[in-house]
């Protein structure tokens, strides 16, 4: 299993490169993971998406797809792509410390 060093700690990753243990996650780690994805600063809008994802994951056991994000997170598709370029659902899940959404097969 591969690991990533964040803030001096070695964190385990799953096969998709997302955190293997969601309990390793905290907001400081999210900021570092975002930098690795090329997002230098997490704005309030980023956090809205990340927090929505974490809440969905806790309730449903699966990270939401881009469609669900568009419908329910309060951020539309266009802005999602601005906030998390290329793959919003995949990137936001990684930054949120969650496994890749099941829809991304």
């Amino acid at each position: 299993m591969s690991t990533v060093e964040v803030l001096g700690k070695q964190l385990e990753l799953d096969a998709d490169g997302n955190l293997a243990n969601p309990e390793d996650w905290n907001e400081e780690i999210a900021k570092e993971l975002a930098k690795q994805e090329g997002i230098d600063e997490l704005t309030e809008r980023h956090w809205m998406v990340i927090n929505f994802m974490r809440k969905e994951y806790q309730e449903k056991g699966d990270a939401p797809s881009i469609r669900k994000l568009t419908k329910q997170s309060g951020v539309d598709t266009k802005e999602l792509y601005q906030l998390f370029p290329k793959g919003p659902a995949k990137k936001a899940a990684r930054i949120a410390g969650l496994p890749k959404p099941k829809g991304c097969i």
Partner: protein
Amino acid sequence: MKKLVILGAGTAGTMMLNKLSNVLEKDEWQITIVDQYETHYYQPGFLFIPFNIYNKKDVIKPKRDFFPTGTEVIISEIDKIEPGKNRVLLKNNKVLSYDYLIIATGSKVKPEETEGMKGELWYKNIFDFYTIEGALALQSFFKHWEGGKLVLNITEMPIKCPVAPLEFVFLADWFFTEQGIRDKVDIHFVTPLPGAFTKPRAASILGDFLDKKNINLTTEFNIAKVDNDNKKIVSWDEREIPFDVLVTIPTNMGDEAIERSGMGDELNFIPTDKHTLMAKGYDNIFVIGDATDLPSSKAGSVAHFEADILFENFLDVIEGRDPKAKFDGHANCFIESGFGKGILIDFNYDTEPLPGKFPLPGVGPFSLLEETKMNHYGKVMFRWMYWNSLIKGQELPIESNMSMAGKRL
């Protein structure tokens, strides 16, 4: 009398009907199947229609040819399922009660989900090939086309038969070579995925085939809209790709009846236990084929392997036992690569497509992840198997669970 209702008489529903009506006692069980259409389509054949390899007559047969005697057949649209009341409401105002329900309502393309896709160029310069209408319209278009930019775009995942878009561009390369205008046709494969396919090792090998065949590849392109005026597709991050003809794989969604029943996810696919194939939260409803939300391919081969598992689990459940058989996500796909050759892939939830021989280790006759003439014959032969054994629920000489034998790691 106990009642089994099967919703959908496509590949999966018809297979289950045939398998179960062979074993359920006629004096104990009433089996009913519901579908809104009377024609059965051999959907893998649609791919060949634009290139004049198949025609409409090659891909259609009446559904009734595949219904065993004694089956109650209802041709009607489904209004909704009321799982709490164990009944199904039909659009023809009938109400069907059931003891057990098998949902096989499939998935379909929804071009209207993307802005501008069903605009003024629809079926003039923009086509799908996942419907008989789209495939035939594209066939007519190609008859007179003199070349230009051919763009194939996958809107979003999941889609039915994730290899079909690749087969389409491979066949287009062959077709336009035969027509003598390949040098005038720029073929461009545009996908939201990070590579040519969903699984990494196959993506890299299939990506090399695109290269060899001089087909351009653009990845991570998530289409936001079709610009009909300027003949361009535009992504959410504002990249633009011009086309003369756009072959689109629109968003795939489950049936609207699933949405009306409140049983689906945001794409109307039904949350399903990935091993037992029972609808999550219900102990008398099974789901099979494209209608599920399983992380497997939406394909006939998958439905076929699922049918073996569902059959065993159904017989357990009606006897009050726990369902024991476990579906492993097995898929087996012949990929037409043009010029009379094909590529074969075989994989499941946990094992991505690997090279090797299939089904007999070291012998074949088919080769995994390699381009051979024999693989192409496999695909050609398959249409006969489909009509004559597969949807009739007969056994095929392939195990329902994937085997590692013959595969190279």
